[in-house]
């Protein structure tokens, strides 16, 4: 799979809901900026989210991504990696 241009809030929200079962949406991620703890996503849930994003985006996200404390932070990490890979 080739690398995508950017990770959207929409895709991230869908992956969080599907992989970790936490109900959220793009608008919530943009405005409320919850942490993973506030969403009820535990460390294994985050691992699953990162692994799925690596499949979706077509690039490895690395250990930093697995340490993200919030979707916002993960989005930033992923998009920085996508820009440098472009």
């Amino acid at each position: 799979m080739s690398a995508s241009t950017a990770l959207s809030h929409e895709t991230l929200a869908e992956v969080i809901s599907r992989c970790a079962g936490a109900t959220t949406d793009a608008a919530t991620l943009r405005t409320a900026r919850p942490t993973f703890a506030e969403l009820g996503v535990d460390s294994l849930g985050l691992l699953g989210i990162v692994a799925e994003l690596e499949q979706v985006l077509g690039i490895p996200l690395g250990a930093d991504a697995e340490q993200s404390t919030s979707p916002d932070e993960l989005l930033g990490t992923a998009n920085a990696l996508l820009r440098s890979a472009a």
Partner: protein
Amino acid sequence: MTRRTVITGMGVIAPSGTGVDAFWRSALEGRRSLGRLSRYPCDGYPLTVAGEVRDYDPADDIDSRITVQTDRFTQFALAAADFALKDAELRPDELPAYSFGAVTASAAGGVEFGQREIERLWSRGPAHVGPYQSIAWFYAASTGQLSIRHGLKGPCGVLVADESGGLDAIAHAARDIRYGTTAMLVGGAEAPFAPFSMACQYGHGLLSSAQEPDHAYLPFSTGARGFVPAEGGAMLVLEELEEQEARPVTSRTTTARPQVSVAGHGTTHTGALRHEESAEGLTKAILAALDEAECAPGDIGVVFADGLGVPVADRAEAAALREVFGSALDSVPVTVPKTGYGRAYAGAAALDVTLAALTLRHGLVPPTPYADGTHLGVDLVTGAPRSTSAGAALVLARGLSGGNSALVLRTVPA
């Protein structure tokens, strides 16, 4: 002071009904709940008839953050425990920390979840295996999730064993209460119907190969041809008698009389698939359970038999009962209600104990569905339920790997 353990809450998810009331009604009716296995395509496999939970999906009652990380067997346990806590009118957060624990028994573990992840592994590669596989397949998953869900910091344990382990778990929890724990959640639930999991059992030859439910699971009968496996199970709330009586409650089970105590337990091991030797093992287990319960054989008014449905094993169980009860066995009703919904491995014993407690409370022995009699000299209850004034019940369970367990339940005098 002797601390006594009583059953104050029961939660059931069985092929024959969800919730204690529905389960009890179907047991008294002798409802026939076996059917064609549908959780995976069973064509081409030697197992066709099974007991499946079709009218209730535990995932409907559990937060999606938990369902993504749990197998069906854990979801059954979580939902059944919710029912049991509600029945007991007990809120774990109202008890002091470290005073409430959980014990479950499991034979299969999270095999549906595991099969799904293994399929991803070989069809798409390791990166497609979800991290929750690491905790969802595990036998301890149900106890762990119960502990997290309810903040249970008291004694927690897991028995990786099948039918006999279900009784041993209840005895384990009763012992924790005897040692000072205030309350315990205990039981077992299974969801064994994944192709690779059931394939592990095709070799032992004990699964019924019947194509039709009516002839599939007939313990103690000339038509016995193996057992029918099932999913589901039960969770119980156990509490210390006097502490429980001091607690303000209005719920029906909790205030129901007589109270039913977990009075005695015995277990032995006589080796995997050595059915003839289970006669001696079961005899010793029953005598140990009677001894601990301070019961004479004559005090036992009803027996919930293991009823494996394999002729040599049924003969061994009948021989054990004859050895313990002698000629008095002729007047002790013996029943195997699980013929109606199947053997749910470690969940089977908790379902049997639930029915035994209800039998003591309501004075009715549920029948053995599908069965029409026996040639093994036990008074098998078939057809209509039987009235009883029993003050004590004996529940038996044998594991396929050689465990022989017995549990005595007794009513507590008012």
